[in-house]
């Protein structure tokens, strides 16, 4: 980590050294017992034989991974080749989630900055204002968003009334609608962590830089961004990863014409495909991808932190 905020002595960095274990025990217990064990069970399931329409038979099988990677045609008798279906599903989901994350950052960062520059006693209210809409259930919010952007909906009416467009925009059931929906679903998950980081920013640093004739945008890039980077990364993680598995926005706004990771897995457990080992396998593949990403990130920050 570069920047003025972290040039602290190594003693402060380890204030809680002796309390480390007790501080971590609650996390280890909650996640270790109530998540790792169930997930380990699912990892085992992904190597078992499927029971038709849900459930598993306790016999080792690689069928789930075979289905993911190997294509043998509709009837399973053609020569084996690489299966693109599910790789495409992953690529599509990653692209949608990526675009949604960028949208969240573009809107979320200035919003967080704006909140951080309000008088201190009103900042809490602004934070609440960002989260108040999320007291309404995601399904209802998504349905309402759908109502707003549909072909003869208020948005198109307003734009046509203002003379901006002459024909209604076909937004509904497009990829853009999905990105918009994901963006809308996760916006506070960008704004709040970024705010938490920006609020700490000491504006005298900007002033010092400005005194040295640095332009505002240079200040933003060279001084602000490195300092608020942890917040931005936290926000990106909180938007991108859940977006990968989201299914409400793709279904309600995108028309569900093609599987996304979320709906593909959902079909295995809650709908007719009922193939638990395959659902488990897709989840394990997804989890491994994200895990690699996270560990790379953790390693890179660990390296940077070294004096």
């Amino acid at each position: 980590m570069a920047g003025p905020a972290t040039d602290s002595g190594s003693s402060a960095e380890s204030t809680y050294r002796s309390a480390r274990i007790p501080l971590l025990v609650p996390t280890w217990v909650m996640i270790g017992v109530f998540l790792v064990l169930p997930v380990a069970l699912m990892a085992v399931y992904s190597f078992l034989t499927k029971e038709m329409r849900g459930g598993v038979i306790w016999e080792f099988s690689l069928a789930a991974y075979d289905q993911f990677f190997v294509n043998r045609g509709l009837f399973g008798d053609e020569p084996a080749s690489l299966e693109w279906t599910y790789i495409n599903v992953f690529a599509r989901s990653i692209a949608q989630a990526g675009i949604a994350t960028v949208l969240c950052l573009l809107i979320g960062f200035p919003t967080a900055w704006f909140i951080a520059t309000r008088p201190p006693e009103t900042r809490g209210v602004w934070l609440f204002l960002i989260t108040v809409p999320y007291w309404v259930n995601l399904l209802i919010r998504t349905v309402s968003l759908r109502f707003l952007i549909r072909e003869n909906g208020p948005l198109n009416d307003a734009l046509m009334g203002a003379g901006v467009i002459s024909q209604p925009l076909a937004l509904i059931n497009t990829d853009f609608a999905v990105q918009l929906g994901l963006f809308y679903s996760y916006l506070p998950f960008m704004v709040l962590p970024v705010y938490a980081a920006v609020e700490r920013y000491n504006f005298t640093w900007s002033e010092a830089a400005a005194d040295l004739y640095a332009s505002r945008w240079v200040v933003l890039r060279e001084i602000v961004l490195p300092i608020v980077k942890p917040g931005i990364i936290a926000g990106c993680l909180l938007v991108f990863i859940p977006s990968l598995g989201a299914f409400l926005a793709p279904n309600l706004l995108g028309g569900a014409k093609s599987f996304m990771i979320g709906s593909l897995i959902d079909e295995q457990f809650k709908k007719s495909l009922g193939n638990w080992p395959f659902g488990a396998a897709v989840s394990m593949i997804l989890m491994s991808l994200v895990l690699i990403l996270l560990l790379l990130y953790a390693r890179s920050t660990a390296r940077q932190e070294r004096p």
Partner: protein
Amino acid sequence: MALRSVRHYPGFFSVALICLIILYAPLVVVMIYSFNASPSLTNWGGVSLRWYFDVFTGPEAPRFKAAAWNSLTIAILASTIATGIATAAALAMLRSGKFKGRSLTFALINLPLMVPEIVIAVATLIFFTMVGITTGYLTILIAHITFCIPFAYLPIAARLQGIDGSYEAAARDLYATRLQSFFLVLLPLLAPGVVSGFLLAFIISLDDFIITNFVKGAGMETLPTAIFGSVKQGIKPNIMAISTLMLAVSILFVTLSYLINRKGRKGP
């Protein structure tokens, strides 16, 4: 003047405004259609309070009331506990020096984000059954605390990374105990991160459907399970009325917190 110019970037205010408009536009639809006289979600049939009467006096009223109560209490408990756990974890991760298994713990904390919800749901239910825990309020709470942890942790950790350790070191030099220096020095500095983490955990818990649907027990309903469960009848405007009431409650909270905050600042 210099202060103003470096604090304010042209366009940031407009973007924040756009952000609020985007966030609230769908809610305007929700509020308007909660007063719809027609049973339709999309066709307007005139102004009426019938769905509000339905919510309070309709045959399903007790179930919706119980669902709203369950949702709110679970969200408050789960997000509070998760925020506590996450704060402790953040201190250990960032303020206890380097240690073996730090990357692994980081991955562990973020695991709830990585595993698709439906998989957590099915796996957790199988796990609860295996160890003989009956599903009910407690199982929902446990599951919610677990998946709320990363949502609380990430903002808190992001904040903690930006806090200079010398503040606490100074406090310790003045013979403050570690507990004193945490509560009197670090926690106030950490507050924006803690509040952000708590709010995110709260809304993620309030919104959860898939996991709750599997780990809830007989007779337990939360608002999301009631809303998503309406597949046989379709969603009716009574859900819009409930949503509007939830908004009213949340705005009440905002106002209260603002007033308390202002009073606190005006005081000595």
